[in-house]
């Protein structure tokens, strides 16, 4: 256990990620609406020591009730349209929606038309689009920071 912590401390020193100059936070609820799981795997690593999303006050929360942002992946399947709307309805105001990855953004959708509703903006108003197939952990972190900074405009 001590070695694990020592290794992580050393990694932190070596990476020397800049300290954030922000004093706020952003609570993110992720909803998978039919992704290939690439976006999920990269989103998980956005919390790894290499991108360390948490140092900016950005965290993944368990419930849409606790969330500022709904981070949606996938081309929105017909079966996930309902759950997506339910999650959105559960969020407190002000609330934001971010489309994560090319499927969610709608630039490169693959599948049978009768199984898909379409990109996220067909279902919900989208405030932020994060392109990429999939976007890298750093790209995800940078985009969420942009959203965090723009919250003054809400």
């Amino acid at each position, binding site marked *: 256990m001590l*070695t694990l912590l020592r290794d992580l401390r050393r990694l932190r020193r070596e990476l020397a990620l800049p300290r954030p100059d922000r004093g706020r936070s952003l609570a993110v609820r992720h909803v998978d609406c039919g992704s290939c799981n690439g976006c999920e795997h990269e989103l998980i*690593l956005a919390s*790894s020591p290499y991108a360390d999303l948490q140092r900016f006050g950005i965290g993944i929360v368990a419930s849409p009730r606790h969330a500022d942002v709904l981070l949606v992946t996938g081309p929105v399947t017909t079966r*996930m349209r309902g759950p997506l709307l339910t999650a959105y309805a559960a969020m407190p105001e002000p609330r934001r929606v971010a489309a994560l990855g090319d499927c969610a953004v709608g630039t490169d959708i693959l599948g049978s038309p009768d199984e898909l509703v379409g990109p996220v903006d067909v279902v919900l108003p989208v405030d932020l689009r994060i392109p990429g197939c999939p976007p890298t952990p750093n790209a995800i972190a940078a985009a969420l920071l942009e959203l965090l900074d723009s919250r003054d405009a809400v």
Partner: protein
Amino acid sequence: VLAGDDGELRTETVEPVAGVVPSIVGLVPAADWDEREAHDLYGVRFEGHEPLRPLVDHDLNVASWTVPVEGRDPYQVAVGPIHAGVIESGHFRFHLVGEKILHLDARLFYKHRGLERAAEGSSLGHGLRYVSRACAACAVTNGVAYAQAVEEALGQRASAELARARTMLLELERVWSHLNDISAVCAGTGLAAGTQRFAGLAERARQLNAQLTGHRFLFGTVRIGGSDVELDAGRASSAREELARLRVEAASGWRELVFNRSFDDRLVDVGIVRARDARRLGASGPAARAAGVEVDTRATSPRLQYDGFVPVTSSRGTGDVKSRLEQRHLELVQSFELLESLLSGPLRPSSTENDGPERALAAARVESPRGATLCVVERAGDRIERVRLRTGSYANWPVVAFAASGNMLPDFPLINKSFELCYACADR
């Protein structure tokens, strides 16, 4: 599709009579999901499969797709399709008494995109996009399985250099995947230091993928009839050096996990799948090998470069969470060794050779990080008539449901993570 002990596949076809074919679930219980799916998507009925519960069809009521459960005050807990972490979408319906799970009905296919149907009519080359995009975590496996099936249908055989390129890509996929899976089991027990240590290593493995091929998940590296992946001696050797560093660091992290008693306590005798059940349910990959079932498609893959490959099995072999975790570690070491030799020299672009008869229907099987993935392709000229992808995750989902029975509900996330299956390539 029938597989011989030598890995050769034989396909048998059955013509339905008035939309009905005889069920094989009595003979092969693992065909349960396949028959239910064929019914829901293509209207095929299976004589002798009773009750034929809906699997992909979500329009019916709960009683139609769940198993009736009786007991003293049994109740149900419905979880998902949206989960509390960064997890793919799927619904689990637990039947409980107190905290004990009596039975679990997993209802997936929330992510069903109809990829196979959408691929019908497209060119054989274009079809690769559909199977690769079915799942990022298994992109190489699915791509290679499809490419091999198509090449089989076209009477082509991979050259030694192509076999080497694909084997390297498959093992690079396994390395990041197994590092991710070890991290996931740590997350399942709440051991944050282990989670982050192995997540950091998974990040490095994906960075290496990007350096070697231009993509962190190795997208676009598989094509039909050849490979464009090219590595000069310098890049191959720097990749070997980075893999050697990852191997040392993974070993150091692993030692910390092995000697952590409170971590270990959470893993032992949880989510047990015995060898007999693993065979009966058609478990595959690390999940089967952790139960002592020595099956690994890599041992019988003449189209890849796995000469002399011998599957490793966890010495515990009891099929619990700890066995499945140990299995990942053993296979990780094995993959590092394979890559050491696969990257021993420069890799040149390569192609296939024509050497056999052309066929309309062909199949291929490739070992994914989660188990054997089968791809069957039916073609009309250079167009796809029908394609089916039966992935390692698809094979193992019923095993997860079985493994959950008899355990406490709070242990389910850990049991689930010890399999760490994809939803995307099961749902397609």
